[in-house]
């Protein structure tokens, strides 16, 4: 370690050879749960050891000093992973319920049809709803509204035309 502190690359190599197997084993034990790349952590540990090599005191054993740095690297990595996972979970879109989708689409369609019906006249709307929604024949509608069956048919047809036009415009607005 003293040769390493003196600026000799052989000193670093000797430190690496002496510490790497033990630190690697220690990091591997810590990483069992998260399965991170132990070699990356080991490399980061040695880079941190390099950056703080001046903090090593030659009269002290090197292992506790190196383990403290390895532990710090491990904890920093774990913290950043945990944060990343939390962000990912937060960003992840929740799986949609198909039934809820159907209900949502039905509500939306109902609202759009409602808007389309409101765009046509009351007379056309009455014939249209009585025939297409309630299932009355045009003869029956004529009797109910005291109009001729062909007038009821014409009003319903024009109502459908108005409704279609309104829905088309609505569709274009949505696009």
């Amino acid at each position, binding site marked *: 370690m003293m040769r390493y502190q003196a600026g000799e690359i052989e000193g670093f190599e000797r430190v690496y050879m002496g510490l790497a197997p033990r630190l690697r084993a220690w990091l591997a034990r810590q990483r069992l749960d998260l399965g991170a790349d132990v070699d990356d952590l080991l490399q980061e540990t040695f880079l*941190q050891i*390099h950056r*703080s090599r001046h*903090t090593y005191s030659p009269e002290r054993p090197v292992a506790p000093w*190196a383990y403290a740095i390895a*532990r*710090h690297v491990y904890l920093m990595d774990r913290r950043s992973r945990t944060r990343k996972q939390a962000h990912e979970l937060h960003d992840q879109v929740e799986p949609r319920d198909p039934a809820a989708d159907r209900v949502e689409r039905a509500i939306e369609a109902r609202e759009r049809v409602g808007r389309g019906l409101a765009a046509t006249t009351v007379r056309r709307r009455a014939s249209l709803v009585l025939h297409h929604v309630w299932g009355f024949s045009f003869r029956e509608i004529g009797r109910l509204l005291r109009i001729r069956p062909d007038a009821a048919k014409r009003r319903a047809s024009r109502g459908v035309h108005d409704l279609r036009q309104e829905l088309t415009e609505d569709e274009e607005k949505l696009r």
Partner: protein
Amino acid sequence: MIHNSPPSRLRAAVEADLSPVTPLGPAWRRSALVLPGGLLLMAGIHLAFGLRFDADQIGSAALWGLSALQIAAGLLVLGGALRESVPGDSLPRSALLAAFGGLGLWMFAVTWLTWLRSPTEVPAGSESLYRAWCMVWPLGLSLPLIALGIYLARQAFALRPYLVGALIGAGSGAIVDAGWRTYCEVSAPGHVLEAHATALVAATVAGALAGALFARRD
């Protein structure tokens, strides 16, 4: 055996940045660098504010002796902070408890002893003024020492920078309070614990914040 020699990229990165370094000195020697600053502050307090009027009644041993011991205690805590800033030299929990708890007990004991020798109260109606004066000044005077301590800690590699900062803050606060008690003539425990001790706690918090922000270069 493949892991027994450094990977080429790591070796290249280390080699590119390799230069001789001087190992850090022991923590006690580095913390001694704060002593001149502390003594300077003490002298400054005397020059600016003077000596408490009941200094003779308290006696040299209880006034100067206890202050000197308090400065030593503050330096000890600062030394602990600088030791904590070196990887593998972390202070055990018992030492941390002794540092923070010890300073609190010390303050309590010194206050009690001073009160026994010269019981003086805050003049009626001036409580808030005395309280603010004895909180703001010691805290303000602690800041240069905290800055110096953080600078010294920054030369190492603090793995728990907030803790290093808190210890530096507590040590600095104790050193400044040792000087402040030779000026503030009020020995009433209520005032000392309310104002002086709050300043010490505030210095500890300020140190912890400064430590978290500046005690590590990464």
